[in-house]
């Protein structure tokens, strides 16, 4: 290939040295930012909030036409399959009627037993809905950006984000009317879970793929393929009993699980407001 004499080759030496130092300077600033992020001081959160405040409305504006197209496509498919869906819903409805009676009986029994044992319930939770305006599912990060609207005043970092399938992730930062969510599959995500069946505990760790690892299970854990893992509520960050993942492989030294949600169904999500500080009534009971 022919060697071309452009850019630096024509410039004088001083300018060239200065330019090299300028790039090195920017690189050092970037390195410092990484280190500051690792130490986790307030500066990073401030910068992130600022950039998200400008960037999120931009993404929202761009996603609006796509949202409209997707909505029309969905509506057309719904109309096409409306008969089949109706049949399916009728069948499901009759099954649910039977379950409803059984559930009512269990609820009453549960209430009586709780009273008998002086059981203290977990704090009451409120929830807000939010719309997903952007998703980033790459090898380096798994995150979402939500449009909170007027609910933004009530949302804080750490709150659980769920959909019909179960836990999706946790609120990372809130800026203006938008929030960034770290998905449970993200490499930074660590969720304390418990097996719905065997009640064995562990921590579900994401690695930016659909396969998550369960670490620190008990030595004699009875975990099997297909078991559902739910939030344990340990640490008080998340409400207990939210479905999180299904065990895919339960080996001796490696237990993997897949999340219950699918990325293509993330349109509208629910944010659970859960503060561990006990309510007044609970305080009185404790006293």
């Amino acid at each position, binding site marked *: 290939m022919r060697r071309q004499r452009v850019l630096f080759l024509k410039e004088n030496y001083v300018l060239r040295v200065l330019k090299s130092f300028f790039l090195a300077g920017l690189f050092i600033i970037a390195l410092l930012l990484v280190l500051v992020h690792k130490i986790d001081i307030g500066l990073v959160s401030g910068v992130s909030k600022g*950039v998200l405040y400008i960037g999120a409305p931009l993404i929202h504006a761009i996603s609006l036409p796509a949202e409209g197209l997707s909505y029309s496509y969905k509506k057309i498919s719904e109309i096409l399959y409306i008969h089949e869906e109706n049949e399916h819903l009728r069948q499901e409805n009759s099954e649910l009627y039977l379950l409803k009676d059984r559930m009512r009986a269990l609820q009453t029994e549960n209430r009586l037993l709780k009273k008998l044992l002086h059981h203290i319930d977990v704090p009451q939770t409120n929830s807000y809905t939010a719309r997903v305006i952007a998703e980033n599912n790459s090898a380096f990060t798994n995150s979402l950006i939500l449009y909170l609207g007027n609910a933004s005043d009530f949302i804080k970092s750490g709150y659980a984000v769920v959909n019909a399938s179960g836990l999706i992730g946790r609120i990372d930062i809130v800026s203006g009317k938008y929030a960034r969510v770290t998905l449970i599959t993200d490499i930074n995500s660590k969720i304390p879970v418990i097996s719905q069946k065997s009640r064995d505990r562990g921590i579900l760790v994401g690695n930016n793929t659909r396969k998550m690892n369960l670490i620190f299970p008990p030595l004699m854990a009875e975990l099997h393929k297909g078991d559902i893992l739910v939030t344990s509520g340990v640490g008080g960050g998340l409400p207990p009993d939210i479905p999180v993942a299904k065990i895919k492989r339960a080996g001796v030294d490696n237990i993997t699980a897949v999340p219950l949600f699918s990325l293509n169904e993330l349109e509208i999500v629910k944010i659970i407001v859960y503060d561990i500080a006990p309510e007044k009534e609970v305080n009185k009971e404790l006293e």
Partner: protein
Amino acid sequence: MSEIKNFCAIIATYIIPAISIILIDLLFYIPQSSEFWNLIRLIPFYTGIYFWLSQRPDAFNGVSAFLLGLFSDVISATPLGINIMSYLFLYFLSIRLSSYFNIKKFSYSWLLFSIAMLLTILFKFSIASIFHRTWIPLNLTMLEYLLTITFYPLLARYYMWIELRYIHLEDRYEKI
């Protein structure tokens, strides 16, 4: 008055490339309604940075790469600084490669981009793996890499259009 106009023109020359990259990147953040489309993720930031640096180094500099990295880090929830470092690394590689090789020929430019991007992705992979103290899945990274270099001509065509339309009417490269 003409001085203000000139100043605005200079600022616009720097802003347009950055905005063109951000706009195309944001398209890939739109939620997809099928699993298949969720798999097809390109990294237009790399194509943009390489294109503007190799074709119009007068309209793109280190500060632009730094700010784009910052934006990318925050929007994608990557640890702050990782994308900045990778874009600066690509900036450095692009400057070096474009000063040594004939990047006016599009096929050469494409080949050099694939080399520069591979090195940059491996650099980012190492930094992210060190940061998280665990290996980032390399298969997904490679899929993103292959898709990005495959669609490079398409993305380059978009940047060429932006350049011809908004920055300069100069025939600097051969037509794709």
